[in-house]
């Protein structure tokens, strides 16, 4: 091990130590990497196991699922037929998708510009406002649900998609996420753009947004997932159940005296897929580091 004489982190640059560069340790690279691969594989397998169980469960009969059968069965189509016969699967997927997509778009737009505003133009006053806004997420929803419901009822907005998504658009969490990310946004770039005569709003749109692609990707995945899985509020605000969502559909399946676990596993598998797909698509943004936009 070579002793690092001075490894000081300052303004994102590392002051070079005085010593020479490390010599090769004489161990093949693949062997040095082996513990990493083994560790990651163990974590990955443990992470995927319940998903595997769900996939296999969707192909099995109810008694087989109860018996924790781990091999695929031949009951997938029967389960699917039972699922669509009992519930409006297409409708639930559509309503959930609509809620999740609209919420994600609106939330990213509203919260990212706010987070940017908080950080790039930060002042004591804005920091105080930020900390005040944080209080909004610290109370359990079960406590504010009834007053919120009463408010929507007074406005005649019960049973509307609008009422489902409105409370989920502006969240302290997303604002904080963008505020924290904006901290690593280089101020030299900002200044250069200002000198070029770009207005503050277009600096945000043309420079900040593309630079912070990975933050947007993370925010989109999390917001989509939360909106997709949101249960209590849609269940209550959609009093007449006209726009049943996937979590509501699954809840219906669990309410009977006799639960068909094969069908249930298929339903929860279908309900879990969209978030996974969204992640799979967006995770590429976590690969390349800062893109050429600012260099």
């Amino acid at each position, binding site marked *: 091990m070579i002793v690092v004489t001075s490894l000081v982190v300052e303004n994102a640059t590392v002051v070079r130590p005085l010593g020479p560069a490390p010599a090769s340790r004489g161990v093949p690279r693949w062997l040095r990497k082996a513990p990493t691969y083994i560790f990651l594989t163990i974590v990955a397998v443990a992470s995927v196991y319940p998903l595997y169980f769900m996939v296999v469960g969707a192909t099995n009969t109810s008694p087989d699922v109860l018996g924790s059968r781990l091999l695929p069965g031949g009951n997938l189509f029967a389960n699917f037929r039972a699922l669509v016969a009992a519930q409006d699967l297409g409708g639930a997927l559509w309503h959930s998708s*609509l809620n999740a997509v*609209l919420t994600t778009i609106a939330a990213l737009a509203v919260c990212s510009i706010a987070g940017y505003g908080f950080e790039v133009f930060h002042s004591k006053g804005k920091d105080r406002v930020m900390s005040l806004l944080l209080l909004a997420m610290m109370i359990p929803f079960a406590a504010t649900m*009834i007053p919120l419901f009463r408010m929507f009822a007074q406005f005649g907005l019960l049973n509307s998609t609008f009422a489902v998504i409105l409370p989920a658009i502006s969240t302290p969490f997303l604002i904080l996420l963008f505020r924290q990310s904006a901290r690593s946004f280089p101020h030299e770039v900002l200044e250069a753009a200002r000198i070029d005569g770009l207005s503050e709003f277009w600096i945000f749109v043309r420079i900040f947004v593309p630079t912070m692609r990975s933050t947007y990707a993370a925010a989109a995945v999390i917001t989509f997932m939360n909106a997709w899985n949101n249960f209590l509020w849609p269940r209550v605000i959609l009093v007449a159940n006209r726009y049943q969502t996937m979590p509501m559909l699954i809840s219906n399946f669990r309410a009977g005296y006799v639960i068909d676990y094969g069908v249930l596993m298929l339903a929860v598998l279908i309900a879990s897929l969209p978030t996974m797909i969204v992640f799979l698509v967006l995770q590429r943004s976590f690969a390349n580091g800062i893109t050429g936009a600012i260099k």
Partner: protein
Amino acid sequence: MKKSTTALAVLAAASLSLGLAACGSNNDTGTSTTGAATTGAPSGDITGKTLTVWTWDPTFNIYAMQEAEKVYQKTHPDFKLTIVETPWDDLQTKLTTLAQSNTTDQLPDIFLVQNNAYQKNVINYPELFADYGNAGIDFSQFPQSVVDYSVIDGKNYGLPFDNGAVIAGYRTDVLQQAGYKLDDFTDLTWSDWLTKAKDVLAKTGKPLLSGQANSSDTIMMMLQSAGASLFDADGKPTIVDNAALEKAIATYQELVKAGVFTEVNSWDEYVQTFVNGNVAGTINGCWILGSIQSATAQSGKWDITDMPKLEGVDGATNYSANGGSSWAISANANYALAADFLKSTFAGSTEFYDTILPSSGALANWAPAAKSAVYAQPQAFFSNDAIYTKIVSYAGKVPSNNTGAYYYEARDAVSTAITKIMGGTDMATALKEAQDTVEFAMQ
């Protein structure tokens, strides 16, 4: 700066139109409820031809409602039912939210309520319910113990539907292997039962019962079988110095200690114990028959009888109830139509009950229906026994018990006490603690 203000305006307009688009989409997307056309506000229907119902379970309650709709349509061709599928937990959340926010105009005409939750809801939220005083329904045709769940201050608030009468189901092949017949497990006391169950366990290796470790279901069933409850007539908790409760807990302890009652962690595991054949019987509300029958391979090997009774407790019987639910008419209902519909179907049509029994196993609480030949049909799964006639006769013999508004608090407190007692805490201490918990909740 001007540019950025303009851009901001564009953004604002965009988000506004997004909102409008979201609003607009409400009106043209399809419905997801069972009914074809959904009425905006569920009630106050001027034409008087449609009713909205909140209930759960497509194979059971919802199916029954759909059949009731067909029966009623024979005499009222324009009649239409909109059924909104809502599981009980969600229904309870909705009821609480509507009551607390004074938006009772959102209530449906009819909704299903768990029998155990009736007192709590009617006492706290009388503004949600209409009583059956003007419905013209003869409640003497229903078992008294079931009607009593939904009687508050002498008024009826529920029409009993889902039957919660307790059955003891056994694998007759396993009993036979140990040299017993179903009759040996009928009309007996828990101590006789225990002797025989130990013998069955010794000879076959199979316990006869199973249940969730942290649940008080079994003890609550034992309690009601003796007509006892956790509250006195004034609604005061009677968890301490309750002879029936102490006997029930002591009995339960013996069952578990002897190994004839397997404690498991969850409901899924409980169902699995008899579906996979590791446990050779179960005692529960008769709605458990559906789960038993999901083990198709065990067809013909099951049969049912009544449950054992507590020894040395006044009023002990072999009959009890667990769960069950009743139809409520909401305060926001088209009362005349809702009452007439329920009266002509759930409280007046043998044909209706004859239809729903074979395909859903939904048992009538309405006495005249049980006289029908359909109820006397032998059931192949249950050793060709006429189990439905049996269950209806049990239902009529269940002693009433007083659930009270604090039923759930008391039941949870007793569950906690049982867990502690099984863990070694002295029974009197644990029950005193449970009593204190409930009294604290009532303050």
